[in-house]
């Protein structure tokens, strides 16, 4: 090459400059990248938490320091000084001892090494000997000799070692004598400050003290070196088996929530703001001993959200209220997270997560909202139109409409269907008409024609029969008294009698307002006498009313009239509209020619009936009511069994501006079911048709919680709540209890006895006592608490009682109705009660007889007037106690066949414990049990006295039932 290579095309200085600037850019970019990767929001949160903990710990240290016993400390310090002085005096002695001890240590060491070495030689020699003798080698004997030698050597060394150890121990003891007192005192002093020290350690861990440690704290969390010993760390739990379904795969759940929610499983942060707040109900959640320990369950299994996220937004937090949303938007830049299939459940719906693991149950303890929601769903009969897992095989929620003419008139029905709430504000029947998408004048005209059709269909060709005329006349006043006392109010409410809105259980049966305008008196009479005659599947029990009682009640109920201004009546017929509507319906199914032919063959009435049939099909009335011709028609609604997992984009939000979430949509749907038709062009057949239910906002929230709980994801068997035999019995029992609304009258599992409020109210009105007084008095005059029924009564007795109740408590006006349980149902309830109180089922051992001599006599003494005077209240067979029946107590002659012996003992011991508010006096004061009984009976032994009473009671009356 020619030597002209020094020519440059570009200026090197310029290139250098560009190189310098671009390198600087590269450096800056790289540093930025590292910083950006390093700086995460959760680190700031953890620092805040450390500061918070430090503040708390500092306070705790102050308290602990103040708690140190200053006198004790002073004493110890003085003693310590004395002990030190004493030790100093004996210093020379100690030095000499120390020297000896050093020598002893060496001896121990050498003998021990010798021993250990010889031991290992011995072991090896033994192995070789075993090998040789196994091979029948000639050298075996030689080896055995060697083994023996090593063995004796080993013994020698062991001896020497033991000796050396003994000497050492002796010397140590002597040293202890000199230094021991000092050591003990120092330990004492340290113990005094142990608490403080531990707190200080904790403080040092969250807030390093001193410049060195402070700078180390910065260093250890610095970028690039924060892998060594960072104090800020991502906290995660990988709950075993709680896998996450991602489409067709299951992958482990990795919950990193505690990276920020640092205080969740620690106590002491209850009143601190999120994200540090302690999780409520630690005994149920998070704690190691709770049923949902955090390391086994994690967080997102209940709360949902993105498990792996370490950032507020990524985690898909979801606000519980609009205030919270506003706050979050301000603090965290919160916005609805798109592309998130499982955002966090707002706090108010979190109970929706329970069902996934607690599947197949009607009651989840601790999930109050869900439980109520489920009751509601069953009560209003959502399952009539929507298929739902867990609601199969239930009877239709409303009454049958096959013999409507026996009960009411077409005019009433037409007006009722158009707007049930107008007639009866608290009805369960939802409203189909006059809603968002059908209240324009044309729509009203059309729907009125439809209603005419529906009513025509319902009253077309009624079942033959009816009810006979009333056998006499009733007294409405007596009727009211009966209704308020015999137990009707456990399930029914009557607006006239209510002061506060009735509870859900008291709305179990239909609200009776307006019944006089609705039902014929003959029907009412026949119904209260035996409801099953009209409606075989009804839940309404038979109260065993006499004819006169029934007449009185009928008389009273017929006085309950429709609200003022409400008049029954059908809309006037509109034949052209009818024709158009019928044609429209027919046209969807046949050619124009066929329609013409068909129309020609129809009479006016036929047209109405035909339109009615079409409309019943469209609105799905048969979902809740038995209607002739629709006995097996499948429900018309969307299946909701997996609604909680339905993808949000499958919900049609139309033009409605609400946040696009499942819960917002469902809430909106319940609030205004037709609103999603807003702004859409639809034919009358295409319009949304879900009716409006008469829910309060709280009830709506409960129902949404239940609907959200229907999810597709199946947790693995290991984390499913599996029912054992006892829980299966409980579950089956609870279903029956709910079906028959037992808790309307009885207190069971801590819930119910809602009738008590009506009894108390009556007492206030009639006796003029204070409300609180009335409430406590009402306990004794309400149907009994039956949570412990399984422990109280004998299984065979209970079985017969359930099948055919007999009065037990003469002072009670309320009657246990005859439900007409089948044997299976009665058996289920029996199992339920015994499972609830964990009592043996079905057999119990009676106490051994004969009873000890003298026991009967003693018992009789105790029951006598001079002592407990039992029979002043308790009936004894035919022998009635004196005084007003309201003061009577159960027949003791029944005790033998009815009560469990063990329960009698517990009952006599402390009745208030088993039945708070009972009239039964406490004869043996539990506070001073040992001195509570009379001293002159059975040697004053309370236990013997109680046993005697029990044994005596069991001899009263007839022989046991069934034995």
């Amino acid at each position, binding site marked *: 090459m020619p030597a002209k290579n020094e020519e440059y095309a570009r200026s090197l200085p310029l290139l250098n400059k560009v190189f310098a600037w671009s390198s600087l850019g590269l450096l800056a970019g790289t540093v930025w990248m590292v910083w950006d990767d390093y700086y995460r929001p959760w680190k700031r949160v953890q620092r805040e938490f450390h500061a918070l903990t430090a503040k708390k710990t500092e306070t705790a240290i102050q308290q602990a320091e103040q708690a140190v016993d200053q006198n004790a400390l002073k004493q110890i310090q003085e003693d310590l000084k004395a002990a030190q002085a004493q030790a100093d005096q004996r210093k020379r002695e100690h030095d000499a001892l120390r020297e000896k001890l050093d020598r002893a240590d060496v001896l121990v060491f050498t003998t021990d090494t010798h021993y250990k070495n010889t031991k*290992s*030689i011995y072991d090896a020699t*033994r192995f070789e000997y075993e090998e040789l003798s196994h091979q029948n080698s000639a050298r075996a004997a030689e080896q055995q000799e060697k083994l023996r030698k090593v063995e004796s050597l080993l013994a020698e060394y062991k001896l020497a070692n033991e000796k050396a150890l003994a000497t050492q121990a002796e010397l140590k003891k002597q040293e202890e004598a000199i230094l021991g007192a000092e050591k003990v005192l120092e330990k004492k002093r340290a113990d005094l400050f142990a608490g403080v020290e531990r707190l200080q350690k904790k403080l040092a861990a969250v807030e390093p003290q001193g410049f060195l440690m402070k700078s180390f704290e910065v260093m250890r969390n610095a970028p690039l070196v924060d892998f060594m010993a960072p104090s800020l760390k991502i906290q995660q739990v990988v709950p075993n088996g709680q896998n996450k379904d991602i489409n067709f795969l299951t992958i482990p759940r990795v919950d990193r929530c505690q990276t920020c929610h640092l205080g969740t499983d620690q106590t002491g942060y209850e009143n601190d703001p999120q994200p540090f707040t302690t999780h409520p109900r630690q005994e149920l959640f998070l704690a190691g001993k709770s049923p949902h320990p955090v390391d086994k369950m994690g967080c997102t299994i209940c709360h949902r959200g993105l498990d792996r996220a370490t950032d507020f937004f990524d985690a898909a937090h979801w606000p519980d209220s609009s205030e919270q949303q506003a706050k979050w938007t301000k603090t965290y830049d919160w916005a609805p997270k798109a592309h998130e299939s499982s955002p966090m459940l707002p706090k108010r719906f979190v109970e929706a997560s329970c069902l996934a693991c607690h599947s197949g149950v009607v009651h989840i303890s601790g999930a109050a909202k869900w439980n109520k929601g489920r009751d509601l769903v069953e009560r209003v009969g959502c399952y009539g139109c929507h298929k739902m897992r867990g609601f199969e095989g239930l009877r239709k929620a409303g009454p049958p409409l096959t013999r409507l003419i026996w009960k009411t008139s077409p005019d009433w029905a037409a007006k009722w269907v158009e707007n049930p709430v107008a007639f009866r504000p608290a009805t369960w029947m939802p409203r189909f008409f006059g809603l968002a998408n059908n209240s324009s004048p044309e729509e009203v005209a059309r729907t009125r024609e439809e209603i005419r059709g529906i009513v025509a269909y319902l009253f077309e060709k009624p079942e033959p029969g009816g009810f006979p005329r009333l056998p006499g006349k009733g007294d409405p006043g007596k009727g009211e008294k009966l209704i308020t006392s015999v137990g009707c109010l456990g399930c029914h409410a009557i607006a006239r009698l209510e002061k506060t809105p009735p509870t859900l259980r008291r709305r179990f049966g239909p609200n009776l307002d307006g019944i006089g305008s609705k039902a014929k008196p003959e029907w009412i009479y026949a119904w209260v006498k035996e409801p099953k005659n009209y409606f075989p599947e009804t839940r309404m029990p038979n109260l065993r009313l006499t004819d006169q009682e029934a007449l009185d009640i009928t008389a009273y109920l017929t006085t309950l009239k429709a609200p003022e201004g409400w008049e029954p009546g059908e809309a006037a017929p509109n034949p052209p509209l009818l024709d158009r509507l019928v044609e429209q319906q027919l046209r969807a199914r046949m050619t124009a020619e066929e329609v013409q032919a068909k129309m020609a063959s129809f009479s006016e009435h036929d047209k109405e009936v035909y339109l009615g049939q079409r409309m019943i099909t469209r609105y799905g009335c048969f979902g809740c009511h038995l209607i002739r011709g629709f006995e097996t028609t499948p429900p018309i609604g969307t299946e909701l069994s997996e609604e909680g997992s339905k993808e949000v984009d499958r919900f049609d939000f139309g033009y409605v501006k609400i946040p696009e979430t499942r819960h917002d949509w469902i809430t909106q749907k319940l609030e205004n079911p037709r609103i999603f038709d807003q702004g859409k062009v639809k034919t009358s057949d295409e319009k949304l048709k879900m009716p409006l239910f008469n829910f309060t906002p709280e009830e709506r929230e409960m129902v949404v919680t239940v609907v959200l709980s229907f999810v597709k994801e199946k947790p693995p068997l290991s984390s499913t709540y599996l029912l054992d035999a006892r829980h299966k019995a409980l579950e089956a029992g609870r279903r029956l209890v709910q079906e028959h609304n037992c808790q309307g009258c009885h207190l069971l599992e801590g819930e119910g006895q809602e009738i008590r409020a009506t009894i108390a109210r009556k007492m206030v009105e009639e006796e003029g006592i204070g409300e609180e007084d009335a409430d406590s008095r009402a306990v004794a005059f309400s149907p009994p608490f039956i949570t412990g029924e399984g422990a109280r009564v004998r299984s065979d007795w209970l079985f017969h009682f359930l099948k055919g109740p007999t009065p037990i408590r003469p002072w009670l006006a309320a009657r246990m109705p005859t439900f007409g349980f089948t044997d299976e149902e009665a058996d289920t309830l029996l199992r339920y009660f015994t499972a609830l109180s964990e009592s043996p089922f079905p057999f119990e051992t009676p106490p051994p007889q004969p009873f000890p001599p003298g026991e009967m006599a003693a018992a009789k003494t105790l029951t006598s007037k001079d002592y407990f005077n039992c029979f002043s209240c308790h009936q004894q067979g035919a022998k009635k106690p004196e005084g007003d029946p309201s003061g009577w107590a159960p027949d003791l002659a029944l005790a033998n066949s009815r009560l469990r012996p063990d329960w009698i003992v517990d009952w006599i011991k402390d009745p208030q414990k088993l039945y708070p508010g009972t009239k039964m006096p406490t004869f043996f004061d539990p506070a001073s049990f040992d001195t509570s009984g009379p001293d002159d009976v059975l040697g004053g032994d309370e236990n013997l006295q109680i046993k005697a009473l029990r044994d005596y009671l069991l001899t009263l009356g007839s022989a046991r039932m069934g034995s």
Partner: protein
Amino acid sequence: MQGFKAAVDGICNPPILFSLIFALFFVAFLWKRVHWIWTPKACILLLTAGLAFVGFGLTDPNFHAILTKPDNVPIVGMLFLVGFFSWLSMYLGLKNDRRTAANLPPVEKLESEIKILVWPDLVYTEMLCMILWSVLLIVWSIYLKAPIEEPANPAKTPNPSKAPWYFLGLQEMLVYYDPWIAGVLLPGLIIVGLMALPYIDPNKKGNGYFTFAERKWEILTFQFGFLVLWVMMIITGTFFRGPNQNFFGPFEHWDVHKLVPLSNINLSEVIWVRVFNVGLPQNWLVRESFGITLVLAYFLLVPMVLGRTLFKSFFEKMGMVRYQILVFLLLCMVSLPIKMYLRWLFNMHYVVAIPEYFFNI
């Protein structure tokens, strides 16, 4: 036969085996009277003997089990290959040495001036080589399945558990040195030493042809390191180490119960307790002062002494730095046999034992 097996097993314990190997190595390379072993006839004889031994070994159930473990088959092959090629290089080297003695150029020189076109000679040779290797691999693969054992189980440690065979030399060193020396320092030094080799080898002769006489020192050192301290250690680790890393003869059953006396003791204990009859000092620096002095002396004094005596010529030829590096590397290499003998003769556990800082030599 039993007697023969017992004799072999008897020889096979580390002190005897390694002493024997050390002796054999130096005799074979240095003792002119036995240089007949570097002849083709001897080669055939030795190969035959080796094959016969393997063949015989296969009749013994214990030896058979070790030899035919799939991953051990290549090691047997490697043994023969390394043996053969060591022989070949010595054979060719000695031949050249005889020519040099007779004032003739080495064999390679005869042809090194002749340039041959690569096509087709070299290309063809390579092609054939590839084909033959392919055949070998295919047949090998058909006859011997690659091992697959039970699925990995972190909770169950196999006894013995061994590193891959080419690292067994290192694992064997673990018997004598702590992991930081056997597993980190010495392997590192092997690499460093190999890389430094061209720069610390003062001998300009013997470049590009086989020779022994002209490079006695280098070849002895290298082969001692390669054959004795690497390959032999691998053999030991593969064939002789059984359960609990115990040493087993080739015909011995791998009995998990085998026990060997363990009576190792640290230098500090010997000095303070046995010699001075006082307890061990609390301070580790005082306690280990003797060991530290000894190690320092080994690495500082010995080069000085050697530089004035045995390695005087090296020292003069290479200059200070290169000489120091060379001697340091040599000393490190020799430290392994030294420690082995310290262990076998005096049960020496550690010369310097500072477990507080994981610093044990």
